[in-house]
């Protein structure tokens, strides 16, 4: 909020930071923890660097990448509300604190319900995406 001239940019920047961190860390650890034997097998099958990266390391890291995405999504929700409440003059977070100021609690609850619906829809979409990408995990891991 200090660095950026526009409040909307600072809010976007904050959210990006909140998402970037878990996604990057978990993607990194996922790639670094690719079983060495998968890479060995791939190399004896004639794999070059691009096969090792895109067809072995990244698929092997996918469960971790999704974990990062889920954590990033949660962090982005939190950051969004905080940013809207303290930083910008728009959005549901701002609306909640504004309505609170006028003691219009009906509007406060309405905004909270909309937020909850919005967030859980996005969460559900991410779960759906995960079930598609990680279909091979079905029956092995439950979370």
């Amino acid at each position, binding site marked *: 909020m200090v660095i950026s001239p526009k409040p909307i940019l600072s809010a976007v920047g904050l959210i990006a930071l909140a998402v970037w961190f878990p996604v990057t860390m978990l993607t990194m650890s996922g790639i670094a923890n690719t079983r060495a034997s998968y890479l060995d097998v791939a190399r*004896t099958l004639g794999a070059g660097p691009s096969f090792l990266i895109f067809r072995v390391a990244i698929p092997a890291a996918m469960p971790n990448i999704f974990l990062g995405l889920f954590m990033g999504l949660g962090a982005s929700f939190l950051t969004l509300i905080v940013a809207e409440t303290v930083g910008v003059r728009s959005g549901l977070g701002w609306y909640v604190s504004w309505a609170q100021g006028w003691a219009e609690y009906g509007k406060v609850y309405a905004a909270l319900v909309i937020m909850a619906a919005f967030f859980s829809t996005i969460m559900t979409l991410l779960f759906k995406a995960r079930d598609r990408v990680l279909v091979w995990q079905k029956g092995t891991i439950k979370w």
Partner: protein
Amino acid sequence: MVTAPRTNVLTEGSSLRVAEVSKHFQNLDQSSGSTHALDNVSLSIEAGELVALVGPSGCGKSTLLRLVAGLDSPGSGELWVGTEQITAPSAERGLVFQDPNLFPWLTVRHNIEAGLVARGVLHEKRNEVEDFIKLVGLESFAGSYPHHLSGGMAQRVALARALVNHPKVLLLDEPLGALDAFTRMRMQDEVLRLWEARGTTMLFVTHDIDEAIYMSDRIVIMTPRPGRIERVLKVNLERPRLRNSAGFLRLRSDILELLHFTGRNAPRELESAAAVETPVA
């Protein structure tokens, strides 16, 4: 149980030569020096031969296999396949581990295709994949993911995945070690059938002496610390071999003797009909 696939022309195996190879591993703890994994190991294997490496843990069997695969480089010495020196991994030298190491994110079919994708020849050779699925008898599991397979099935997929590239040499690192005794004996026949059908040169590591005698043309006995070749035994028994024939059992007790597992300390003179070769330099 499966007929050889139609496109299965006998692939010409290649000879393999290991010349005076030594390998040290730096210990993780710097102060304790290095482990002498292989000491001046020399071995030649003819094209189409099936050779077993036998010995206790730490004798460098797996290290030797990794060197042949090109996954590690020797400290000194050279390795050759035919007239080519081994410097890096290649699709010409397939490798199968004890753990099938199937890519869990790919179906059986896609796992078998992996070698073709890696070499960028999937388009031309897609029709062969079907033959390899049939070769290992997994037609009804082609669309399954690896975690739905039993240990034996997963290892068959791993074999098919290695064979799809028509390797000149197939390296097997205790391929059947994790299987139960019955599945294991069935798989031994399966591997022999693949070997006879394809003429691939095979080098396999095993802890199981019976397996080595049952399957191989020659048995290389290794001893640990430092890893070196103790003896090379030729198995002069007709295939299919009977696991309880006199010759089989004699050879078995000779090998146990060489590995000092008979309770007596000094190895006595070998009695069996097996011709004993000393390691060739």
